[in-house]
């Protein structure tokens, strides 16, 4: 029998996951795809953070004289505008760089919103059980029944285009999986003896959460978040395409494609280059996320 001291058990559990963690880390770090993806992301994020200094021009500066300048490797191109200019003469490269900020901001913020909502919902569901659990479960089902794009479209169209609206809406349409994972973890944990023992000696719920639930779910959450950032970026692009983007002069990549798509036959770079930017970023995120999943989940080959 031997009542194991809670602390020892905890140490064992946490220790095991850390040890497993470093093994996983090694597996991840040695994978070429993961390295490439991480490198790309690193570049992307630094460029985005340093945008005002890295971008050659002010992304909002228009010039009627310089409209539709092609990229510099085409005839009529200009080295001052390496990727050409758009329909009001704004530099495409600068807009893409600044757009990186917004796209990444939207992606990360939306996922943060999802995380907060999802983890809270999962915790509430798992710990409180009963009616709360059923209620939240129903909300999850309802939320999952809508195609994300349509729901987002309806919300944004109804409330008016704005960056905050988009972030909130995208966040509110992706939280379900976090809730499920956290809930499953909480339920699994409740079974364990040492938790009951801990409760018996008065260890608060919060500590249980922090020390047990979260560490075990971290790996799943990290993987899911990574992939969801990618999805959020694609979703924002889709919303802009359907005409309900942030509505402003903020140059998001999705918006650039939306504005440039009418001119695709005469100025291919306007819609194609931001699309490539999205592609590269999302690809990098997917590569990293995918390898993370492989590394952290011992079941896959």
């Amino acid at each position, binding site marked *: 029998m031997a009542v194991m001291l809670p602390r020892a058990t905890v140490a064992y559990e946490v220790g095991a996951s850390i040890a497993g963690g470093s093994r996983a880390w090694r597996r991840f770090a040695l994978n070429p795809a993961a390295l490439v993806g991480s490198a790309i992301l690193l570049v992307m994020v630094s460029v985005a953070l340093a945008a005002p200094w890295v971008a050659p021009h002010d992304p909002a500066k228009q010039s009627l004289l310089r409209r539709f300048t092609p990229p510099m490797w085409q005839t009529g191109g200009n080295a001052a505008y390496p990727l050409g200019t758009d329909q009001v003469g704004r530099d495409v490269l600068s807009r893409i760089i600044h757009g990186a900020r917004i796209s990444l901001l939207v992606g990360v913020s939306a996922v943060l919103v999802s995380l907060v909502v999802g983890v809270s919902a999962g915790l509430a569901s798992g710990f409180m059980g009963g009616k709360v659990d059923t209620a939240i479960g129903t909300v999850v089902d309802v939320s999952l029944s809508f195609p994300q794009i349509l729901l987002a479209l309806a919300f944004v169209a109804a409330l008016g*285009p704005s960056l905050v609206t988009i972030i909130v809406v995208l966040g509110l349409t992706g939280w379900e999986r976090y809730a499920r994972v956290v809930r499953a973890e909480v339920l699994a944990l409740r079974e364990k003896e040492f938790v009951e023992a801990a409760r018996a000696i008065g260890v608060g719920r919060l500590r249980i959460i922090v020390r047990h639930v979260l560490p075990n779910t971290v790996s799943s959450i990290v993987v899911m978040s990574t992939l969801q950032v990618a999805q959020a970026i694609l979703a924002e692009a889709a919303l802009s395409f359907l*005409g309900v983007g942030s509505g402003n002069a903020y140059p998001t990549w999705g918006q650039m494609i939306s504005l440039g798509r009418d001119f695709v036959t005469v*100025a291919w770079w306007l819609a194609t280059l931001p699309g490539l930017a999205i592609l590269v970023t999302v690809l990098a995120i997917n590569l990293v996320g995918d390898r993370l999943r492989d590394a952290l989940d011992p079941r896959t080959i």
Partner: protein
Amino acid sequence: MRCWLTGLFALTLAALVVPIGAGAQGKGTITVALPSHAPTLDPHMHFERVGVLVNINMFDSLLHRSAKLEFEPSLAVSWKALSDTMWEFKLRKGVKFHDGSIMTAEDVKFSFDRVLEPGQEKKKSPQYGNVRAIKEVKIVDPDTIHLITDKPFPLLLERLVYFGIVPKKHIEKVGEDSFGSTATVGTGPWKLVEWKRDQHIRLEAFDQHWRGKPAFKYVVFRAIPEVATAVAELKTGGVDIIRNVNADLMPDLKSHPQTRISTTPILRVHYISLDMRSAPFDKKAARQAANYAIDKQAMIQKMMAGLGKQVATVVQPAAFGFDPSVAPYSYDAKKAKELLAQAGYPNGVDITLHSAAVDWRPHFEALGQMLTEVGLRTTVKMWDPGPAWNKFFQAEGKATNGQYGSWGNYSVFDADAVLHPLYHTEPGGWIGKHYARVEGLDKLIDEARSSVDQAKRKRIYAEIQRMIREEAPSVFLWTQNDTLGISKKVAYEARPDEWLWLFAAKPAN
């Protein structure tokens, strides 16, 4: 498992290899790309431009307008004013509807009554506002009707050019709903074959049309929401005519071996309505500053390929009542800054402009930039035409400083058709009641629209134009062209009233 796998492959391969079935493209068909279809084919139950374009090819009105914009007899062979408020129209004899029945004065009266709905509280037709001034339609004899207006209505003939005449007995038989969707019958050059919603409307030439047979046997209106798709279709022969070709796409279509461009100036005028109820545009100097800030010529040359004309006010040169002696605001950034300082903003001021003119977004952004350069630091916000109207025109409390838009006058070539909606405040033009607050303007507009003395009206409109030029309730911009992309296989030219009068289209040789 293997079997259905192979089957799958075969299917995919077959799909790729099957020869291109180009749909309804046969000889004698002319195909037009529209961004969407109107909700109904009933000419009285919608107010969408895309619907009007289809309706004018299926229905006739009392009057027609030639390509030179002169009134021509259509279903009415002659007309005269019997008094200030009564007009007599003699109807054409022997006009057949698509179902074979003959058009009479009964049908004309029925058409007007179903929109005017005398005695009815709730008016069903969105066209009501256009013909509201008509109080009564009297049948004098089977070929003569009288139109009686409640006040002198100078725009009567204009409004009649687009007012389709529909068959009374037929509608009573099949009901309004199927009339608008499957059993649409008119007197126009083409009759309905089928309407697949969101896909295409297919029309067939009506052999017994009173004008004779059109050159094309079939007309197909395809609904293609994406510009790039429509352009691609034009280039590959999937459609023959596309509308609203952006100035930047013109060179591509001009140089493509299969396509060409036809362009002509139209009534549509662009403006920025300024909110005179709140700062900074409650000050005249600020409004004038905004006018001086825009380099209109540069915009027309660089962004519209020169296909546009600067206008002094919102009244267009082709409209009745236009006064050429009113001088437009020049481009003078220095003066703009001075005026802005005079208005009390030496360090500039932040404003927000909204617009629902999604096709003109680049221009809107350029305008915002020019205003910013003189100190009116502009945030441009673009709305979808749907919710846009609501946010603006319902919630008056919300702060907006101005709206960029364009007005097509519903193809009515009269100054009233733009002055009233833009500037009238009580009971109110569509836009005017939310923005403009020019003293005395309402009274002048009312006076001009209730007189049929053209000379008097011209005088009043001249006065109005001078007044609004000085008061600058809007930033006055330009009129534009209507630009069509046309297949080289079709001979058709754009019209100054934005109509697609396909009866005039012929196969090119």
